[in-house]
């Protein structure tokens, strides 16, 4: 598997966490909270687009929603590959973090 960009990783994780509510608005809110950075809609759509093209996510339109003026949301969900990709990410992350202790202190000493 190819490595994902950081944005893609984060979006992939956010979709997993949000489950049925995984559409752009809450994804963005979650990422803004988690990263304490401002995320534009464009960047999230870009990431979602790329993940969908790579086959990790699939999307579907929800039923029309009154509070959105009768328009649908585009809800994202993982594909089997997407779940595998999450595993790979965690594995890679774990390997890379393994053995690193209290690095801030070490660096200071």
């Amino acid at each position: 598997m190819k490595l994902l960009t950081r944005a893609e990783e984060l979006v992939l994780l956010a979709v997993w966490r949000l489950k049925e509510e995984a559409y752009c608005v809450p994804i963005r809110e979650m990422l803004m909270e988690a990263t304490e950075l401002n995320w534009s809609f464009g960047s999230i759509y870009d990431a979602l687009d790329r993940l969908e093209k790579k086959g990790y996510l699939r999307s579907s339109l929800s039923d029309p929603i009154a509070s959105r003026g009768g328009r649908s949301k585009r809800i994202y969900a993982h594909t089997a590959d997407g779940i595998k990709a999450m595993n790979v990410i965690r594995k890679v992350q774990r390997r890379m973090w393994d053995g690193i202790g209290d690095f801030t202190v070490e660096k200071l000493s």
Partner: protein
Amino acid sequence: MNMGPHHRPPRLAEWLLRRLGHIKGWDTLADDIGEAYNSMVEKSKKSSAILWYWGHVLKTVPGALRNTYYWRSNMIRNHLKIAFRHMNKHRGITAINLVGMGVGLAAVLFILFFLRLELSFDHHHVNADRIVRAMKSYVGDDDNRTALVPPALSPALVADFPEIEAGVRLIKQNDVHIMANSKNFFERGIVFCDSSLFKVFSFDFIHGHAESVFSDPNGIVLSESMAYKYFGKENPLGETVTYKGQTALIVTGVVKDQPGTSSLIPHFMISLDMFMEMKDWANPDSWGASFLNNYFLLRPGVSLESVEAKSESFLQRHYESNKDHPFNLKFIPLKQIHFQTRRSTITLFGGIASLVLIVAIMNYINLATARASTRSKEIGLRKVIGAQRKALLGQFITESVLFSLIAFMAGLALVASLMPGFNSLLGTHLSLSLIFDPVLLSWLGGLIIVVGLCAGLYPALIITSTKPADIFRKQVMGHSKSILRSTLVVFQVIITVVLIALTLVIAKQMRFINQRDMGFEQKNILAIDVRDDRLQKNKMIIRQLLKAHPAIQHASFASSLANSSDYMTNIDWPGKEEGREQDVWLNFVDEEFADVFNLELTAGRDFKSVTSNEKDAAFLVNETLVRALGWDDPVGKSLEHFIGGRKGTVVGVVKDFHMLSLQESIAPMIMDLWPDWDKSSLAVALNQNPTPELIGEIESIIKRFAPDYPFVMDYFEDRIKSSYTSEIRMQKLFGLFSILAVCIAGMGLFGLTAFTVQRQTREIGIRKTLGASIMVIVYQLSRQLGRNVLIGNLIAWPLIWWLAGKWLMRFAYRVDVDWYIFAGSTVIVLLVSVLTISAQAFKAARANPADSLRYE
């Protein structure tokens, strides 16, 4: 639960966002941002949410634009580059196409300019949409419409119809003697009208007030240009203007001139009450005599149909006396009035101009399909790389639209430089500044695209249809035996031959008219306007004074000159059968009329020899009238006609002459020797060519009696010619366009032959080495095109016969469509095509085969 979003984002921003989201395929983008916007409005201030929203939108724009347009334009730029290279490589063919299409487009451009100008007539009036003109049509003959209605109609309509806001009645006069500030001129645009004129139409008052100008019936309103002409820069209010040397009017207002695109251009506006006062026959309450134009201002939102629907009962109400009202009332919107009079001219000229353009487009198609093979490798390669057919079509369409754009620029330059010539040819007043009119611009844009599509679509389909494998297998494309190409050549030939033949027919007819014996003398006759009381009173003396001059042979006062007739009426005679109607044309003349115009007498006496007691009741008639009445011995018979209720005796018969234009047959005619009738013209026959001194002497004689009456003199010959202006115009236009068509079609043939020759160079070489003679090769090269040219001629002949016959129908005296008209036009086209084709064929056939075969 069914509640919409609480807060709607700024509409423009939302719309932009939807467009941009659509481009990227992010269909829910706008809704998502909208949702975030909503929660933001709830949490914080609305203004900051709006700012945030807009910021978001604007941030998205550059990227989206680059994605959509930059990459797309990249492709178009490549297409343009290839197109330019291609044009550069085939300069000859490009030049042929460019010249042809440029000239064709220039012709169409002129017509579009003309059309645009004509369509914009009367739009400047603020209420133009609501102004209508009343039209009278006769019961049972609805097509026979006139704009003249009786005086009582307008007040009654305005009173009875709440839908009508105001009405204005007017009557126009031209060539009226106006005197003011001791200046004398004949003026056009004298209008007698109700003061509501200034309410219905838009006039800007420089001096005076619209409401009060006619509060005194002898008020007169001048246009700005006329006020300047007579009074200079002074304020003319209160000055006196004398109408026809008799009626003194006081200037009560000055209005800005109407623009040239106005169908109503009044320069002197006088109260209609004044007209009624001056003419004892005019009764303002009459439902009988129709002599006024009526315009009405409808209230906003009122439809014409609703008014027309009620007019039936309205007319019945007001024509109580005779249950069947004698006419129907119709209305025509102001904006359509002018255009209707020009429709046939525009259709005709537009048609011919389009034909020239079509010939040029056919050239493009022919040459483009013929050259398909030269582009096959490029197409093949593009296809191999993965170009879709759609993209390739786009490329060729781009190319042809680009071409049409370039040709358009050339055409526009041509239009700009030829504008004065065109204006004088057609008698129009076009200017290049019209090009900034947005409507015209949109037409021109449309024209470029339509021409580009027409020219490019078919070649594009042909060129892109081949399979790349075929191309690289070196199969020859663009067969010389293309059915379409043959058809187009045939069409070009038809168009060209027909245009030439019609030109010949028109020229023949015009020569016939010019050379035809009209039955009267035309040379060395002067026509002088004498509509002045003082001149009318002294007719006898003036005539004697004139005749005392050695250079003047005869002089005659008459209501019309010999080439026209102004009055038509019914006649009565003893022994007339019940129910028989006989129309006659009338001319009120004096004793020397027949001498001035050298009319030939076939029976009886001339007016000169009538005795003084006969003078009050003497008629001369023409042969046609004698035939119509079936008289064997016309002299001494009595007649009565109804203009002035004149009874008289026929003293003589004149040989028929064309007292109407040659478009009409000679009709029955009476010349009435009635001394009291006002004669509008004075005809003077000279025995030498007119010199300035002689004319000066005549002027001084006239001036002796009416020193302030403007002296206006025409040569009679010019008057006759001017009655055929539109035919002469048409002759020039057809001549010009057929020359253009011949040239363009000829260039097309040239291009096609050049191409055939180029492709068959090696074949010719081989044939020659095998012993073919030059003639055989020339025949072989020109056979195909020559056959098409012949077929085109054959098809054109019946068309010519039909069209020429139709045009000639308008003349009562017309030429035949002789064989040599067909032959002549065919010979011209054949000559041009044979020259263009064979010149190249000979060149190719004479070439040394060794040269063409050397590089194999």
